[in-house]
């Protein structure tokens, strides 16, 4: 490096001329601006900000200027280099962002491609519905009781006040195990679990029992020799029919929505007295009997007691225009049942109820043919791969 040249006229040094510095700066900025890729920017950086660039050379010349000129020239060149450096950084950031974006764009896939490589499984709706029913009662502190399907005649009938010569036995078409004199049957209802529960637990008893039951019905769209019931039994001090109503109303609203309640109609079961049929307010039309899809045009025409002949079009399909759905049977536990199970009928009263789970599933979920429940078609069960 040469020493300072005191004769050197800074104005005469070309690279340090103000316009030359500006021109170099402007050329650099323009080149930066036009760099379209990171590679181009790299070349621009070398050319305009590298060691051999005009501004770098000018910077190198500053030291050769007389002291009085250095300050001004240094400032000028420094500003120009600063502007170029900043522009480079800014452009670098922009181009890098663009580059990353482009890679992501190039990596795009068709997200609509299916990934049904592993077929989905599903639990049977009878299972999930039984569990849901159980959960409603477990949430109230009840427990789930169980019993065998191949059952003693005594438990299926006699203990429930259905003696051998009771006419109500003909209501229950029973499968008998060979030889019939061995007094073993396929349970015709879940009610033997009532007796089993009372014989194995001390009151207070609050249980439900979902399970499989059997009747000698021919198999068709609405009948099956195998079907499912849920039994409820409460035995405690001071239990009344009002508690039965309260429990079933709660059950109804839990299963079918707020405001859906039940109605009792007198009926007959040997194991309950008084006995009642349970009707459910139709959860589709909410008791109006009118098809909600048809809406106000029918509803506005008059009362809910539409004429039977004219209601065919606008009547609710779920309840057939009745406003009510038959749901099951219930009643106050017959004291004779308590006696047969060793429960003191003077101290305890109870109630019991039974509903068809298959039927509930059918009307709750619009299943038209009962046989769908037992044919195991994966399309049917698969449609119920949900909690219900």
């Amino acid at each position, binding site marked *: 490096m040469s020493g300072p040249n005191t004769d050197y006229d800074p104005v005469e040094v070309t690279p340090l001329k103000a316009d030359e510095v500006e021109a170099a700066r402007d050329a650099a900025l323009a080149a930066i601006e036009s760099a379209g890729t990171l590679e181009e920017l790299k070349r621009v950086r070398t050319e305009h900000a590298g060691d051999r660039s005009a501004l770098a050379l000018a910077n190198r010349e500053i030291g050769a200027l007389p002291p009085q000129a250095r300050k001004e020239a240094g400032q000028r060149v420094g500003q120009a280099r600063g502007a170029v450096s900043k522009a480079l950084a800014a452009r670098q950031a922009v181009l890098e962002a663009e580059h990353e974006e482009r890679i992501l764009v190039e990596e795009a896939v068709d997200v609509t*491609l299916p990934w049904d*490589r592993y077929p989905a499984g599903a639990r049977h709706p009878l299972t999930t519905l039984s569990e849901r029913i159980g959960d409603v009662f477990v949430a109230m502190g009840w427990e789930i009781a169980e019993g065998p399907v*191949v059952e003693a005649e005594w438990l299926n009938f006699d203990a429930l006040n259905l003696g051998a010569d009771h006419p109500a036995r003909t209501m229950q078409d029973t499968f008998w195990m060979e030889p019939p004199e061995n007094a073993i049957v396929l349970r015709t209802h879940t009610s033997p679990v009532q007796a089993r529960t009372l014989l194995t637990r001390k009151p207070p008893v609050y249980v439900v029992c979902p399970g499989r039951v059997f009747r000698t019905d021919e198999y068709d769209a609405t009948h099956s020799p195998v079907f499912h019931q849920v039994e409820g039994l409460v035995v405690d001090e001071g239990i009344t029919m009002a508690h039965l109503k309260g429990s079933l109303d709660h059950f109804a609203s839990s299963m079918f929505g707020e405001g859906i309640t039940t109605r009792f109609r007198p009926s007959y079961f040997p194991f309950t007295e008084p006995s009642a049929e349970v009707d459910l307010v139709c959860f589709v039309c909410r008791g109006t009997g009118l098809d909600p899809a048809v809406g106000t045009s029918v509803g506005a025409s008059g009362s809910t007691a539409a004429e039977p002949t004219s209601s065919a079009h606008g009547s609710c399909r779920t309840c057939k225009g009745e406003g009510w759905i038959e749901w099951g049977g219930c009643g*106050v536990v017959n004291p004779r049942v308590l006696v047969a199970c060793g429960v003191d009928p003077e101290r305890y009263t109870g109630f019991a109820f039974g509903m068809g789970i298959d039927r509930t599933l059918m009307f709750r979920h619009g299943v038209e043919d009962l046989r769908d429940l037992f044919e195991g078609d994966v399309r049917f069960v698969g449609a119920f791969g949900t909690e219900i």
Partner: protein
Amino acid sequence: MRAPVSWIRELVELPADVTTEKLTDRLTMLGLKLEAVERAGGDIQGPLVLGRVLSLAEEPQKNGKIIRWCQVDVGDANGTGEPQGIVCGAHNFAEGDLVVVVLPGGVLPGGFAISARKTYGHVSAGMICSARELGIGDDHDGIMVLPADAGQPGDDAFGYLGLDEEVIDLEINPDRAYALSLRGIAREAALGFGVPFQDPALRATPEPNGTGYPVVVDAPDGCPVFVTRTVTGFDPSAPTPRWMAQRLQQAGMRPISLAVDVTNYVMLELGQPIHGYDGDRLSGPIRVRRAVEGERLTTLDGVERTLSAEDLLITDDSGPIGLAGVMGGETTELSATTSHVVIEAAHFDPVSIFRTQRRHKLPSEASKRFERGVDPLLPEAAADRVAELLVAHGGGTVTDGVTKVGAAPEPRSITIPTGLPARVTGMEIPAHTAVANLESVGCGVTVDGGSLTAVVPSWRPDLNDPFDLVEEVARIVGYDKVPSVLPAAPAGRGLTPAQSLRRRVGRALAGAGFVEVVSFPFTGPAALDALGLDEDDERRNTMRIANALSNEQPYMTTTLLPGLLETAARNAGRGQPDVALFETATVTLPRGTVAAPILPVDRRPTPGEWDDLQKALPDQPLHLAVVLTGERERTGWWGPGRAATWSDAIQAVRDVAQVLGVEVEVRSASVAPWHPGRCAELLVGDVSLGHAGELHPKVCTAFGLPARAAAAEIDLDLLLERAAPPSGPVVSSFPVAKEDVALVVDAALPAGELAATLREGAGELLESVRLFDLYTGAQVGGGKKSLAFALRFRAPDRTLNDEEITAAREGAVALAAERHGAVLRG
């Protein structure tokens, strides 16, 4: 029970605003549930009028038929008052006869629309109707010719023919036998609307005497009351009055002859089944006795029946002439020539009738009533009513003789606290309401302090217990008044562990791609044969159903596989060959053939009795079974699919065991219905859970399954019992040391066994061992295979050093060499 509304209204004067709908609503809420309301002529549209045949001209036709061209006066019903020209094919009427005419615009049953149409060279403007065409009878003898006093031409015929009659069909529960009569239904209607009821059975009847048809009752337990009355000089050709025939039809019974129709009519009216005998065909006294075992009787339906010693019989000197209370015999039945009618109105023991009816599979209108309980005070009134109607419509004389053997039992009385109905129902029911309601059903009630005593009316054999009275009181107050109160259950313990675990098992399998199915638990020899079970296979030890619906499936199944395989085949048949199914259900495993005791019901069974009862029942363990067919993983844009194999079936059980926290051991086995070389036994310790693997090719063929279907079946109860949550798992944060070893062993050595050896030999530092490669081929030589395992070592408290790791690995390899001759592959 079908009841014409007009008949009900005849027996009880209902308020004017009580429509049929209100009536049936009220009856339903009283416990007589409405099944349907029918209108007798509901499918007929008018104009349907009376017409008088003014003239008729017979016109032979080319087809050999002779038609009648009639001029019929239909009054002003046709709008003109002119006679109506109608072509008629029947010949059973004459000029001047009154007939039923449907005019153009009318519609007959079956949607048969009537219009004026050209036929046989005339324009026939309407039709002269037969009973058959109107759907009110099956008279084949031509058109209906009405009595001259039936009405005037042009009168509406609906009313006359009973076609505007509403008939309600009520479901009668077995406890309400009294409502199997108009008397009972009318009584309910009366109490439902709070109007007085005139009991049609309350009639003055002549005192019994010794001159009636003689009766001997040898079995008073089966026949407490037997009444006979006799009508002589009866005209057997007398027709049944139209109103009576209509009511019988409306109630669902077929009119037969006046004498038979009267007995049926009185049964419908009062509820007392009546039997009529041709008195000229009876020989000697009527005798009621039990049958002799093997005795024979031909009943009215023409069937010869072999009797049991329990059957209650009606006999005369000729032998059996009827199954008491169920069905009469052929030899003494009322016939077209009967002029001497002996009327039987008896009371029979419900149990005896029930058993006989069941034994002979002979339910009848009579047995239906007797087995549920008929009013024992009815026989005299009913017999008297029959005699009255016979004579009124068939002439003759009621003879003075009145036979009555036996007597109705004294009425029962039941005492309850007056507050019981309120205490049981949770409704506010004051004592006076309880009394009034019991009185309205016919009880005589007396109140004594805090209790009331109800004398049960004779027609209510169902009222025996205090709670029976509660129901009577409550249903009249109205079940809609029962308040809704949630009972406060004590704190519960939630699901039992087994209940929770069962849900977990189902979710695990569904999560693994299995679809749950529910099958019937029935099977048969063909299905067990199709599984290829040996003759002595314990799964052939089944419980048999005495009255199975199908001869092919008379057994309770011992295995879930038949149902599951059939379901898989059904799916394949419906175009779904790739399925993975599971089922959890109990199977029935007999324990011998001990009878289940019929225990007393007046006390709790003793522990011994309860034990005996439990022991008589079969074992009913919960099983789990899976079946897989076709592809387990589908073919797709990602590449080829993967067929389900034996390993998927085994893995399903492992998946289940894993969520239960149980380690399942897999051993090679050879059991039907599996492929003998691709079958695994699944064990927990020494306890065998069941088997899994590929199904035998013959089984796939027999069930129509895709080839190489795989299946598993285990006793799920055994697995659930062993479920255990993890106890104190330790997760070390020190580094892992990974060592791979490839061992060459005999091809027959199960990989599971070798892995167990490595685990044992590696000692405590081993964290896991996992098979990652299996090789057979030239490099290892014939009869050998190479198994490559990844071993992971880790200590809970330190970083392992090289010496420790090497020692552990070498320990594993050494034990494998010692035990299985395993050679480390170079």
